[in-house]
């Protein structure tokens, strides 16, 4: 599959085929499913969402029906012509290989490895180049599909983690997952989220995501899929300039499901006005440190 366009990010409306189809009909170029694990998983108690200073906090906790039950949804999606990317997770390289093998039989265009949810046990994977290597290798060994590694911005050295993923065979990097954060209710004097802490998404994390994409683009040869806080075509252009070949959109879908086509149109106009023939001319055009 070509890594380009504007995709639905994992975890937003991605649990049923019907909502993913709706998002595709609204103009998304691809959809990433909710992260699916080996077994059904309840996730954290509510509240699973909170808001603080213009950002969204979530601690859903990887609620999902498990890979076997998810087959039914994938069957419906297989009919569709646009790329469906399956996001998967597991808490050992051995288990992720099992999930990946099962996922591959469901006909996705690519597999995205969630190595980075900041409010679940798996949060630590993409903090370590070594552990990241193990997961990516385990999956690459069992599937023939493109494999994307989704990283956390919370790691001291996300560039080394990205390099490790690339060396282990990842076909693209997805950056970023949510940023560790929390909200405390001052009247109740307790954390709002059921899980107490969670991950920040939406506009406030945009400059953090841009930096991450920029750093990774400058260090790696594989494409970068940018995600984090994008809600306008201006954001998308900035993310492309930082080095993103494709862009995923999550939180902004809550405001407007038409966000994909609006962004696409805006970017097209920008390219035309600036005399660019294709998006490739601006990907990474902000230059870099190397």
């Amino acid at each position, binding site marked *: 599959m070509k890594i380009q366009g504007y995709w639905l990010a994992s975890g937003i409306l991605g649990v*049923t085929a019907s909502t993913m189809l709706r998002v595709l009909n609204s103009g998304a170029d691809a959809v990433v499913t909710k992260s699916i694990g080996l077994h059904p998983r309840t996730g954290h108690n509510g509240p699973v969402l909170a808001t603080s200073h213009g950002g969204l906090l979530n601690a859903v906790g990887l609620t999902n029906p498990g890979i076997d039950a998810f087959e039914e949804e994938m069957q419906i999606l297989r009919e569709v012509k646009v790329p469906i990317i399956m996001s998967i997770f597991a808490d050992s390289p051995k288990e992720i290989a099992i999930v990946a093998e099962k996922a591959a039989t469901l006909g996705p265009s690519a597999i995205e490895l969630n190595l980075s949810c900041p409010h679940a046990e798996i949060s630590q994977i993409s903090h370590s180049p070594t552990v990241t290597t193990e997961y990516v290798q385990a999956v690459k060994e069992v599937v023939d599909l493109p494999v994307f590694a989704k990283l956390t911005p919370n790691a001291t050295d996300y560039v080394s983690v990205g390099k490790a993923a690339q060396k282990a065979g990842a076909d693209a990097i997805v950056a970023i997952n949510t940023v560790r954060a929390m909200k405390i209710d001052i009247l109740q004097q307790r954390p709002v989220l059921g899980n107490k802490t969670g991950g920040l998404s939406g506009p406030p994390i945009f400059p953090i995501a841009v930096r991450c994409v920029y750093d990774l683009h400058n260090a790696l040869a594989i494409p970068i899929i940018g995600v984090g806080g994008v809600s306008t075509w201006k954001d998308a252009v900035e993310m492309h300039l930082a080095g993103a070949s494709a862009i995923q959109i999550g939180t902004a879908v809550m405001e407007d499901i038409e966000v994909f086509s609006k962004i696409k149109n805006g970017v097209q106009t920008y390219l035309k006005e600036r005399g660019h023939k294709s998006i490739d001319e601006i990907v990474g055009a902000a230059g870099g440190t190397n």
Partner: protein
Amino acid sequence: MKMDELMGNPESMQISKIITENPHSKTLLFSLKNQIKFQPGQFVMVWIPEVDEIPMSISSWNPPEMGITVQSIGEATQALISMFKGDWIGIRGPFGNPFSTNSKNALVVGGGVGIAPLRPLVYRLLDRGAEVTLVNAAKTKKELIYFKEFDNLAHPNLRVEIATDDGSLGFKGFATEAVAQLLDENDFDRMYTCGPELMMAGLYNLAKTIKIRFQASLERFMKCGCGICGTCAMDPTGQLVCADGPVFTGEQLAKLANFGKYHRDVVGMKKEC
């Protein structure tokens, strides 16, 4: 993006009053600081500290005071009806599309705690000068909610019919049977309902047969309430009960494969209704 607004301007408040409705249902009242707009049929997400956050219809609306009517069916609802005056809860909303109040002669059918969102609807319809026939249905007399309130109301335009499965009060039998009878004898222009989904599916079929407008408020498992998590999706349209519902028209329901058939549980697995 106006994140607070999209998230329903979350707010914490203390419960100011508790009314016992039946052995396992209570109405909780509290005051909002945010000035919010409300239409009958809309709901809020209620944060029960240390427990969970669950959707609840707004059953009472006298700004700034509002209320919810909770029936205990599990951990969160049990915790909620066990709370005391002065205890803190969190509220965000209101969310969802409301009932249309464009009716001259309305039939309103509530099954069990399904009467909760219909209570403000009935008042709104009466305010607008409509004739309203309310079917308040429950398993047994003791389970009826707002029975006394509507009984005492004696509004010239309101007619209240009671239906109990065991016949302990009013019509004996299912709400659908009571409604079938009422439809025979009256000329309603609209039917509104909330309650067990199989009941609502039955009512929908009745409404379809005699071709009157129909609106039902659906329940689905909800984690976010504001259109981001996807838990409450309907097949095959991908409509979200939280954002595109909870009130759906007959035309909309005709397209929903899972209405009256199945819902998805907490992890997203299909469960029969």
